[in-house]
């Protein structure tokens, strides 16, 4: 059983990462969405929406044909790194559950174990999402 201080530290780490992510993104709407999240389950949903918005942007940049191939490859690799943490990967060993699965579990039973699993998943997703955002920004700033 983990101690309360460990959960506090993990919560702080998630909040700190989200603040950094919002700063990297630099958008009022993004910050408002994370602030509007009422609890860890909502935060998981906001991170999923954030990933979806960045992914759409990456796909649009790729389809525009104006970004160099190397930048597209970097975006694709960064997406491959973050996607399993968001949508899950049932074929991985051990399988990686989606954020929705973990949020549903936590909403159903607010146990310390479920909280820890969701918190770790959100932390991992946000960490990789920051890398994806950087790759997309780099692709936007690079011309042939």
């Amino acid at each position, binding site marked *: 059983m983990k101690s309360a201080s460990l959960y506090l530290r993990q919560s702080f780490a998630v909040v700190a990462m989200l603040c950094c992510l919002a700063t990297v993104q630099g958008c009022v709407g993004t910050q408002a969405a994370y602030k509007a999240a009422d609890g860890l389950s909502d935060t998981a949903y906001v991170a999923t929406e954030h990933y979806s918005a960045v992914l759409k942007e990456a796909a649009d940049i790729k*389809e525009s044909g104006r970004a160099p191939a190397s930048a597209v490859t970097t975006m694709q690799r960064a997406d491959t790194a973050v996607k399993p943490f968001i949508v899950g990967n049932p074929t991985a060993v051990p399988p990686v559950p989606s954020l929705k699965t973990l949020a549903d579990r936590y909403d159903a039973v607010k146990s310390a174990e479920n909280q820890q699993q969701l918190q770790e998943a959100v932390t991992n997703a946000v960490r990789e999402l920051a890398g994806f955002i950087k790759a997309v920004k780099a692709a936007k700033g690079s011309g042939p």
Partner: protein
Amino acid sequence: MSIDKKELGLIGLRGAALALGLLGQAKASNSLYLLADAAEAGINIDEHMAAVADKLKSRAKTDADWDDVYARIEADSDRLHAPGPGSPG
């Protein structure tokens, strides 16, 4: 019908990019197009996340919200990883 300042700025950037392209300044033209794309994408993300904020303030998220966002992720993931325009190699 009104056009806001952001849209006017994007139209201006793309107009300048077009003009440079017509003058044979392909590199500068492409850079301006990329800049316009970047600005538009930033606006789109911000608007999307602001809508998410409004939704969470007005009501609790539902299973349908999760299904919707996962469907968008799959569609855009297919676009990003599909062979075609912009694909490496």
